[in-house]
C-alpha cells in the first residue's frame, strides 16, 4: 500500500509546491503595484517602467512581493489555497439553488452529460450489434466510424447549439446531443471488438447446440463483450463531460460549469475559473471512478475479473 500511495503523494506534493512557487513571478507585477499603492518603496517606481520586466527579476528587486503574491483578488495565477477556499465557499456555503453555487452549475452540466451518455451508449450498442450481424453494414459504417474519430467533432459543438436554438430546441437537449455524439463512437468501436471477441471454438459450440443468432448474441457475444464495454464507457463518459462543458460555452448565461468558465474569462475572475475547472475535474474523476467500480463488481459476479 505504502509503495503505491507514497510516490503519488510525493508527485502531488511536488506539483503543489511548484504551483506555489510559480505564483510568485506570475503575480509579481500586481503584487509590486499593490505594495506601491500601500505606500511602500518599490525599486522601479511607476507601473510603466515595470511593464516589460520579467516577473523573476521584479521579485528579486522587491522581496516583499513574495508575500503579496498569495492573497490577491484577481491574480494571474491563484494560489492553491485560494482556489480551495473558493470551491468550499461556492460548494458548501451557498444554497444549492443559488446561481453562485457550483453544485447548481455542476448539476446542470452533469444532467446533460448523463442524458447524452445514456443516449450515446444505447445507440452505440445497437449499432454495434447491427454491424456484427449485417455484413453490408459492417463494411459501410465501420470505416466511417473509425475515420470520424480523427475529426475534431468538438469544434462544431457551438454550432449545433446555435442551430438547435434557432429552431426552438433549448436547454438540456442540445448539450445532451453533443455528449451523445462524443460518447457514441468509442462505444461502437469498443463493442464491435467485444462482440467479436468469442473465438471460433466457442461459436462452433453454440452451433452444435443449434443456437439461433439471437441466442448466440444473448448467451455468448454480449457477456463476452462486457470488459470491452466498460473500457469504452470510461472513455465515453469523460468525452461526454467535455462535450457538455464545451456545449455550454456559446449559450453563456444559461448556467453550467462551461458558462462559469466563460463568465470568469470575460470578467477576469481567475479564481472562479480555477474553481469551476477543479469542480469539472472532480466530477470527471468521480464518474470514471464510478464506472470502474461497477465494472469491478459486474466482472467479479460474472467471474471475469482479471
Amino acid at each position, binding site marked *: 500500500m505504502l*509503495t*503505491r500511495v507514497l*510516490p*503519488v*503523494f*510525493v*508527485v*502531488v506534493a511536488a*506539483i503543489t509546491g511548484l504551483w506555489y512557487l510559480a505564483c510568485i513571478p506570475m503575480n509579481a507585477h500586481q503584487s509590486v503595484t499593490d505594495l506601491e499603492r500601500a505606500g511602500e518603496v518599490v525599486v522601479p517606481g511607476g507601473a510603466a517602467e515595470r511593464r516589460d520586466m520579467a516577473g523573476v527579476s521584479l521579485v528579486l528587486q522587491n522581496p516583499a512581493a513574495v508575500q503579496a503574491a498569495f492573497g490577491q483578488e484577481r491574480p*494571474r495565477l491563484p494560489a492553491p489555497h485560494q482556489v480551495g477556499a473558493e470551491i468550499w465557499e461556492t460548494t458548501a456555503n451557498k444554497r444549492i439553488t443559488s446561481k453562485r453555487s457550483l453544485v447548481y452549475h455542476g448539476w446542470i452540466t452533469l444532467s446533460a452529460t448523463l442524458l447524452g451518455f445514456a443516449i450515446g451508449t444505447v445507440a452505440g450498442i445497437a449499432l454495434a450489434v447491427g454491424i456484427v450481424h449485417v*455484413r*453490408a453494414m*459492417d*463494411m*459501410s*459504417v*465501420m*470505416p*466511417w466510424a473509425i*475515420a470520424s*474519430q*480523427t*475529426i*475534431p467533432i*468538438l*469544434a*462544431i459543438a*457551438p*454550432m449545433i447549439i*446555435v*442551430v438547435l436554438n*434557432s*429552431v426552438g430546441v433549448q436547454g438540456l437537449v442540445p448539450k445532451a446531443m453533443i455528449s451523445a455524439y462524443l460518447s457514441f463512437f468509442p462505444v461502437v468501436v469498443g463493442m464491435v471488438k467485444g462482440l467479436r471477441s468469442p473465438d471460433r471454438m466457442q461459436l462452433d459450440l453454440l452451433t452444435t447446440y443449434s443456437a439461433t443468432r439471437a441466442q448466440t448474441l444473448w448467451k455468448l457475444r454480449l457477456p463476452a463483450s462486457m470488459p470491452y464495454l466498460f473500457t469504452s464507457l*470510461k472513455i465515453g463518459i*469523460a468525452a461526454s*463531460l*467535455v462535450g457538455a*462543458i*464545451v456545449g455550454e*460555452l*456559446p449559450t453563456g448565461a444559461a448556467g453550467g*460549469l*462551461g458558462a462559469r*468558465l*466563460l463568465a*470568469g*474569462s470575460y470578467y*477576469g475572475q*481567475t479564481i472562479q*475559473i*480555477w474553481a*469551476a*475547472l477543479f469542480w*469539472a*475535474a472532480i466530477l*470527471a*474523476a468521480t464518474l*470514471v471512478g464510478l464506472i470502474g467500480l461497477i465494472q469491478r463488481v459486474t466482472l467479479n459476479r460474472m467471474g471475469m475479473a482479471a
Partner: protein
Amino acid sequence: MNAALRWSIPDWVGLSLVALGALSDWRLGLVLAVWLGLWRLNTVIAASGSTAARYAVPAIFGLTLLILWEMVVQLYDVPLVILPAPTAIAARIADSLPILWQDFVQTFVKGALSGFAIGCSAAFLTAIAVDRSSFLQRGLLPVGNFIAALPIIGTAPILVMWFGFDWQSKAAVVVVMVFFPMLVNTVQGLKETTAMQRDLMRTYAASYWQTLFKLRLPAAMPFIFNGLKICSTLALIGAIVAEFFGSPIVGMGFRISTSVGQLALDMVWAEITVAAIAGSLFYGGIALIERWVTFWHPSHQK
C-alpha cells in the same frame, strides 16, 4: 450472385416502407426509395467479398449519405441557416479558398502543429528523464492517467489570458492537452521489454544508453505512436476550441464562432470540412510513419 439478387423478407419490409412513405408524402417516398436502392446495391457488393468491395462499399455508403442530405435539403427547402446542402458548402469552399487557407495556417500550422511538437517532445523527454527512477514512475503514471481523463480544454480561458490572443496561447493549450497522454504512453512503452531481452543486453555489456536506444526505445515505438495518434486529434480540437475564448480576426475557431453569429452556416461547414480533412491527413500521416518505423510489429504483417 443469383442468391444475392433474390428478394428477401427485409426487402419486402423496405418496399412496403417506401410505398407507405410515398402514400403519405411523395418526397419521403423518393428519399426512402433512393436509400433502399443504394443500400441494396451495397448489400450485393458486400456479399461478393472481393477486395474492390472493401473500398467500394464504404465509398458508396458515404456517397449515399451525401445524396440523401442534398435531396432532403432540396426537396423540403430546408433554410440555409439550419442545414446548407453539400453543393452549397462545396461552392462556399471554392469561393473562399484564400480565407480558408489563412485560417488553416493560423490554427493548424501555427497553433496546433507547434503546440503538438512542443508538447509531445516535452512529454517524451520527461518520460526519458523519469525512466531511471521507478519511484517517480509509480508516482507519475497514476497522476498522469488521472489528468489525461480530465476536461483539460477548460484551461483554455486561463492560457488565453496569460499568452494573449494570438497563436501562442493556442499552442500553449495544445501543449497542456497533449502532454499527459503522451507521457503516459511513452512511460508505458518503455516498460515493454521482457526480462529475457534486457538480460541479453546485459550479457553484451551494453550501457544504459545503449540498451535504451537499441532495445527499449524501438520496443516502445508502438506505444509512442499510439500516443502521437491520440494527440493529433487532441491538438486540432484544442487549437480550435481555444479560439472561442479570444483570437485575432483569423483562425478556424474564430471563423466558426463569428459565422455562427452571422448565421452563415455554409461558411461554418466549409471550415468543418477543412478541419476534418486536415485532421484525417494528420492522423493518416502519423499512421504511415508508424507503419514505416514499426514494420516489425505483428499488427502490420499479413
